[in-house]
């Protein structure tokens, strides 16, 4: 029985019509010690496959570490130079820029005060003129009434 089955499987195998499961059966049969002499020729073939399957990769795999991407080095460098130059320049300007600021503030205060004074005196003048007009009106009315 066993022999017939194996014979059938072998024929199928030679036509490449066996499934993986059937091939597994064949391999198991040939790995066992009780192989019929009729199939002795096939034994070394299947033994060869088993042997080859036994090779393994024994070293450890190494993947590349994330190293610096040199492409962007030049970009970063130029940005650093530009920023650095700005810093340096602005640090120089602070000596010049420091003094006018407080003076300007003081001036601004003075100017504002002067303006306010001007405004109040202008209002006084206009008030005086208005009073004058009022007086004129009153006198005019007196004249008209008398007449």
């Amino acid at each position, binding site marked *: 029985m066993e022999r017939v089955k194996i014979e059938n499987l072998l024929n199928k195998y030679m036509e490449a*019509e066996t499934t993986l499961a059937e*091939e597994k059966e064949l391999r198991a049969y040939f790995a066992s010690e009780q192989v019929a002499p009729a199939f002795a020729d096939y034994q*070394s*073939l299947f033994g060869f496959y088993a042997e080859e399957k036994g*090779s393994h990769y024994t070293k450890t795999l190494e993947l590349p570490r994330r190293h610096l991407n040199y492409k962007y080095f030049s970009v970063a460098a130029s940005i650093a130079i530009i920023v650095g130059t700005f810093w340096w320049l602005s640090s120089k300007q602070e000596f010049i820029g420091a003094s006018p600021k407080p003076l300007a503030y003081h001036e601004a205060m003075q100017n504002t005060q002067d303006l306010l004074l001007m405004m109040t005196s202008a209002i006084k003048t206009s008030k005086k003129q208005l009073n004058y007009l009022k007086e004129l009106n009153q006198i005019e009315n007196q004249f008209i009434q008398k007449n």
Partner: protein
Amino acid sequence: MNQQKFLAFFNPLKDRIYRLSLRYLVSKDAAEDATQEIFVKLWKRRKKLETYDSPEAYAMTMTKNYCLDQLKLKRNNQLRIVHSNYEDPQQSLQKQLEAKNELEIVHKIVEGLSEQEQLLIQLRDIEQLEYEEIALVTKMSQTAIRVALSRSRKKIRKEMLKKHRYGTR
């Protein structure tokens, strides 16, 4: 995809890649180097790998292509080194003695097959891949694969019988 996830997925493939490289390159050192190289390549293309249906098949295809390139390079170099009159009678005797080993016989026979036939034997008989996956790796139709595989198996059988008949004399 970080390195841990990548390795978790591809580590199981390393033996398969190693064995296929070994079939092509014969030397264990060369196969080890090839496996390492191919993993680095796979890592570099990890984004693309996520879009493939079968990254495993892609890994095998990559292995095949890489090994073929290596062989081409070796062949080009060897052409300059080998002397046409070189003969070693001592070596041929040794080879005869070696060939008496059963596995060696099969090994020699398989080496005598065409490159495509060897690849199919490797993928089906040794790595036990489904025909579907083999089709992805070799870019052949499943029918073509079966036909070629059947032919190679019959060839091997014929050669084995020849050797055995010779051995029993």
